């Protein structure tokens, strides 16, 4: 979704520029020199987002050009932060794909190996699904000692979610429970 940052970033009553420049000279700020005007280099497609750090839920505006982030700063309309951003919020741009430490390949470490190997998604999904099925089927408890249907697996654990989106959390819960996973935990416990 596009938002016009220019419009709401403008400081109220600040119709500065040529007119005031002229006025400033006239007002006798003798040493004042006009600033050489170059178009903003941090402009582009603007999209609203919510900060991925703490639970304040501050709004930010991501500016991107050709899919690459050129600027991220506070969303001035957002009622939680009104355009503000703490050290982490202000640093959001370093999360972007330009961060050289970001993971960008599927990696696999075989048992006992000393290093990761690069793999394809297809390979990884197939292998992971195989392992899940093997572990699930081997340890699946259909009925407990009292004969009650319990349909659970205690051999697979699933953790995490507080850094995911709601929809991902929901699908994760649906996925894990349909597999019979009961060791289902995440950051909220910690």
């Amino acid at each position, binding site marked *: 979704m596009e938002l016009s940052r*220019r419009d709401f*970033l*403008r*400081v109220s009553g*600040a*119709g*500065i*520029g040529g007119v*005031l*420049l002229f*006025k*400033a*000279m006239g*007002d006798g*700020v003798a*040493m*004042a*020199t*006009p*600033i*050489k*005007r*170059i*178009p*903003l*280099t*941090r402009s582009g497609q603007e999209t609203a987002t919510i900060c991925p750090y703490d639970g304040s839920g501050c709004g930010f505006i991501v500016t991107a050009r050709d899919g690459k982030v050129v*600027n*991220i*700063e*506070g969303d*001035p309309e957002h009622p939680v*932060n009104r*355009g*503000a*951003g*703490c*050290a982490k*919020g*202000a*640093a959001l*741009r370093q999360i972007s794909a330009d961060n*050289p*430490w970001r993971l960008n390949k599927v990696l696999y470490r075989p048992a006992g190996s000393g290093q990761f190997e690069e793999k394809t998604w297809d390979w990884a999904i197939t292998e992971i699904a195989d392992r899940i099925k093997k572990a699930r089927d081997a340890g699946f408890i259909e009925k407990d000692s009292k004969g009650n249907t319990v349909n659970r697996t205690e051999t697979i654990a699933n953790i995490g979610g507080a850094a995911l989106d709601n929809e991902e959390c929901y699908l994760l819960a649906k996925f894990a429970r349909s597999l019979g996973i009961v060791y289902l935990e995440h950051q909220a416990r910690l």
Partner: protein
Amino acid sequence: MAEKAILYDASKCTACRGCQVICKQWNGNDEIIPSPSSGDRVAVKSRGTYENPPDLAPDTWIKMKFTEAESSGKMRWLFTRRSCMHCTDAGCVRACPNGTLYHNEFGTVSYNKDTCIGCGYCIPACPFDVPRLKGNRITGIAKADKCTFCTTQGLDRIVEGMEPACVKTCPPGALAYGEREAMVVLGRQRVDLLKSRGVGGANLYGENELNGLHVLYVLEDSPGAYGLPVNPRVPGATIAWKDVIQPVGWAVGGLTILGLGMNWLVARANAKKEEK
């Protein structure tokens, strides 16, 4: 009036340092740690303080200063902004030999990085120890840097009608921006409010210092307690350099050449006479 100013309110600041980061983000300044190509691990070390990086730098235009103060059993943690104050009587502008540093139309101090010759004279000239030189110490190839009041070319927020990046990002609203006169009024109001709430030492810093700073401070204690100069002045040597040395240089140079020219005329005339 078109003069602009930032009002920094120390009584509201929580030193979250969003300003330190957004300044780098907006102005494209790097951190002082190695790039990934030069290795994975970090050279910056903790020095037993929240204050980092250690000092202002060519790529660090704002740095929050943390001061612990304890009086009559009451602990206080004072936070101050260390950055360019954009003085009206600016030592750096005075010291700059070729007008690279200048007062812009908003009364703040900009500089033209293209014309900077890297002499570094602005550094000792600043009563607040703000400008920094980035360059090669041996070759002397360098450029000075400091807060531009968000008038960095191509990134000039002020001209675009936006507030400086640091002001915008401040979560507790400790930074305000607007016409300088309005900021002075706002600052005075804050000081009055703080005084009425029992902060006897509240004061507004920068209203008249150096003929008026364009970064004003609301302080809860004397400027000295925050590590600010109580009575900042442009150093005598800087005044002497720009106001005395340069003109004297031109005078002496001019007179010398004039004198030698005259001598040549007279002496040559005499020499010719003698030959005859």
